[in-house]
């Protein structure tokens, strides 16, 4: 007699959990490093390159506020990405967009950092790619719109 064990098939209609791509872990680590770097820069701690292109604004109170807000947002986005929170994906895209703007301004004002620019470009395309969109927006997010 053959024993039939409990089925492992998900119920019909249930969405299979997409495994978290490795690249998202990398993005999350970069966000954590960047976020901590911003917060440390406010208190003059740690190496300045961690604060990226915004290190120059820490001397004013507004600049410090921007660094704190951005740093906290990056940490929140990193945690949210790992927990598959949809708004964290949006927040990360916004942070990457701002990073691209800062880097482009730096390039056109004669202070380029090509490594940082390349990282932001890769992050933008990676986060907008189909595999990542499927993690946060579901399989219906194959089209360009949201």
């Amino acid at each position, binding site marked *: 007699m053959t024993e039939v064990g409990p089925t492992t098939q998900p119920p019909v209609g249930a969405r299979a959990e997409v495994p978290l791509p490795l690249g998202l872990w990398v993005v999350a680590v970069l966000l954590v490093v960047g976020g901590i770097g911003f917060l440390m820069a406010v208190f003059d701690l740690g190496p300045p390159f961690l604060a990226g292109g915004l290190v120059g604004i820490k001397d004013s109170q507004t600049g410090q506020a921007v660094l704190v807000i951005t740093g906290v947002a990056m940490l929140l986005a990193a945690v949210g990405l790992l927990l598959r929170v949809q708004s964290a994906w949006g927040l990360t895209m916004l942070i*990457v967009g701002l990073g691209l703007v800062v880097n*482009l301004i730096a390039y056109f004002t004669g202070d380029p950092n090509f490594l940082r620019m390349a990282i932001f470009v890769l992050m933008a395309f990676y986060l907008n*790619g189909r595999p990542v969109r499927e993690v946060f927006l579901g399989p219906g997010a194959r*089209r*360009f719109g949201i």
Partner: protein
Amino acid sequence: MTTAIEEAVSVSATDLQLLRAYEPIVRYNHGELFFPTNVEGYLRECDLLVGSSERDREVIVPVGELTPDRLATAVARPGETLYLRLVQRPMAPLELARWRNRPDRQVFRAPGRLARVGLFARLVDAAFSTSLLLRGTVPGGTAGAAQVKYARAREGDPRLVYYGRVVRENGWIALQYLYFYFMNDYRSTFHGANDHEADWEQVFVYLDDAPAGPRPVWIAAAAHDFVGDELRRRWDDPTLEKVDGHPVVYAGAGSHASYFERGEYVTEIPLPGMRGVRGLLEALRAFWRESLRQPDPGDLAASLSAALSVPFVDYARGDGTSVGPGTDAHWSPVLIDDDTPWVDGYRGLFGLDTYDRFGGERAPAGPKYGRTGSVRMSWNDPLGFAGVDKVAPPSRQPEELRGRIADREARLRELEDAIARRSAELPGLDLEARSLAADGAMTTLHKARAAELATGTAELEAQRRERAGVADALVALRRELGRVEAGDLGDPRGHLTHPHRPVPEADVRYGRLVEFWSALSVGLLLLAIVALVSLRLAPWWAALGLALAGYAVLEAAFRRRLTLLTLRVELVLAMVSAAILVWEGLFIIVIAAVAGLALVVVLDNVRELRWGSSESSAPSPAATAIAPGSEAGDLDR
């Protein structure tokens, strides 16, 4: 024995019966001002002018004295145009305001046409509106005055008239229905592209002149920017509406253009060079989707074309008066042909000549002639007009197919004979060439024979290729004959490449706020640029950039697409950054690419060496298993 007159009367009666049997039901919009009427009543309201410009013109027949017979004899002097004028004095602003507020006026409502398109199309619209100031146009207040005259004419003759013509040719009977309107008020009443006095529209029904009696097969209707096959629908087309055997046609509001489906149609500018751009955009789309693994952006060429479409909407809702069988209003047909004096004799315009260089605001000529005075294609070639001339009537299709099959069979026999002859010749020729090659003294002769052999081989190959094609065609023709004999005429929409469809209902309904913004946006954008530049707040290029960015953000906010806009802006920034990286690091990238390629090649070759050595020492079972497949590989080669 019947006389010629009795015969002509009999033919006319038959023609009239055919026209009546298939006369279309035309459904108009709520708010339509003009309906098809007779030319005589119109002529009573017109004067006849001749001239070469708006300044240089003279009245040659005053209002009230014009008749169809007198019109038929009117001739223009060289270099001048002959035209009718319906409105001698357009309404003054106060008069127009009163007319607009008349109690029996049907109010036409439409969602903002500008909300359906993007910035570029709105700019085109603004440029178009500006161009009206510089072009010859129908004066403001003309539509109101024309409507008053039309109402007066209808009091004297309330008939709703179509002019009918019947043409028999190549087994077809073409029924031509011509509708004459006092005015096209598309621009002034329905926010459309143009106005002009007088309007001729037409619908064709094509009957198969079968031995068992005429049978409807096609219907064609003239619509903006469409010609040939796109104009016609097959009688069994599921999108063609019919009531008791009468086709239903929807007339565009004010333009009176004819449509087969109820709805609203957006006119698009066909972009020159779009075909070349399409390939490039498709390649970009494939690279974006497949190589970069980004979400599918959709048909980019279609999106671009839609973004550049001129926002003129032809409303063919059919929610107003309907005319035709089964409705409250019936047609009064009038037969016309080449012997009708005013049709044949008058080559001038049927309404005001505004001398508009774009032509859109000039009145049309009559049913037979175009504005240049030459005969219209729809009149001299009613079959070719809708691409019916190349189509066999269904009753003749079996006979046509059998004829074609016989022709192809004969060709196949010819080819087989030729192939047999050639096949018999070539081996001997080859042997002769080979034997001549053995003797150096016979080189010239050998070259000649070798050339002959090459030509013969090429011809034989071509004949065999043609034989295969003819045999395939015969199979298809016989299959088609079987289908046609069984009454299957194929896909009713198979001849359409770009069928004109109305805009989906969901795509034309916007909130009030979006419509309001769409109406104001272009003006505000221009004002913002002017303010930024004139107040010296920013240089012109920065002002333009700021204004466009502000416009994009507001547009996205009104349409609740801010997230999408952010995403798109970010991708554009990423692409710009990527381009900078490539530009700045081109040398490093090339070095890295070549090094990477070298590594791949080395690894691949080493792997091949390893596989090769293992196979030579002991062939793997997998390698043995795939050996028979190599025959299939030979076939592929």
